[in-house]
């Protein structure tokens, strides 16, 4: 029986793979669904302002919107370059 179990568990079933992929995807799509529509533009404009002063790349800035009950949080994260 244990030998049989070994062979069974050696490869994850395709169904569990499907579940895992879906859970990640659905969570991601749900979080972006609730975001305000101005977010991408806000990100672009903020990036333009920051680049006036610091030479950062296109992906140096991330804007996160989170909703937790009644509280909405806008999180802004800027990665400054190392070589200064």
């Amino acid at each position, binding site marked *: 029986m244990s030998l049989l179990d070994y062979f069974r568990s050696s490869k994850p*079933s*395709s*169904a*569990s793979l*499907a*579940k895992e*992929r*879906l*859970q990640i*995807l*659905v969570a991601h*799509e*749900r979080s972006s*669904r609730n975001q305000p529509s101005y977010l991408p533009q806000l990100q672009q404009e903020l990036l333009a302002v920051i680049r006036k002063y610091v030479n950062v790349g296109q992906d140096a800035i991330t804007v996160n919107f989170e909703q937790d009950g009644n509280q909405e949080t806008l999180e802004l994260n800027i990665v400054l370059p190392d070589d200064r």
Partner: protein
Amino acid sequence: MARIIVVTSGKGGVGKTTTSAAIAMGLAKRGHKTAVIDFDVGLRNLDLIMGCERRVVYDLVNVINNEATLNQALIRDKRCDQLYILPASQTRDKDALTTEGVGKILEELAKDFKYIVCDSPAGIERGATLAMYFADDAFVVTNPEVSSVRDSDRMLGILSSKSRRAERGEDPIREYLLLSRYSPDRVKLGEMLSVDDVQEILSLHLLGVIPESKSVLNASNSGTPVILDEQSDAGQAYQDIVARYLGEDKPHRFIEEEKKGLFSKLLGRK
């Protein structure tokens, strides 16, 4: 007060029209006056599944454009006098459906009918969004398969944000999961998402599981809603679904692999 049910899924081919025909017939058979509307403008199909394709004279778009009255367009089912079908138009004009037009038809139907079943087309274009816009309840038909589950989740997002109930700030649409084309034996082998998996991902109230069944194709071949095939597993699954929707407490079936008796095994029955 009429209740408007939308049968939706996002993805095509999962069983929306089969489900619409079955539950509309099921509700009507229980004595509730029911109308079922095909919203798939351009690709009419509900009439075929219901077996009334040769009796279509006027359609949904004719009524919207005041070319026919609602009573002229409604087709009374020959098997059940509580059931009426409003077929879709075959026009290729995508703008034929309007929110006002659909709203007016539903309002008029609501005076006379207990349940109005809206058979949504696949996709997220106008026919689909209008089918759900006025809904009170949503039957989300999902197959245990990745793209279908993802599309269902997408539809849940649209249901909660782009419906009349959402816009008016009323109680949200009640959403139910109908898991169709389910194969318990494949689930057991780890080849198919289980009903628990799908429920965990979508977190929806399960109204019923419809097993993968030969009876569905047989029913559509002959233009008979599968719920009328009382011997079939799919027909029984839809009867359970209608009963549960109406508030009856029925244990779920068709989730576990059917145990074969020694006799069937010997005869190799499936």
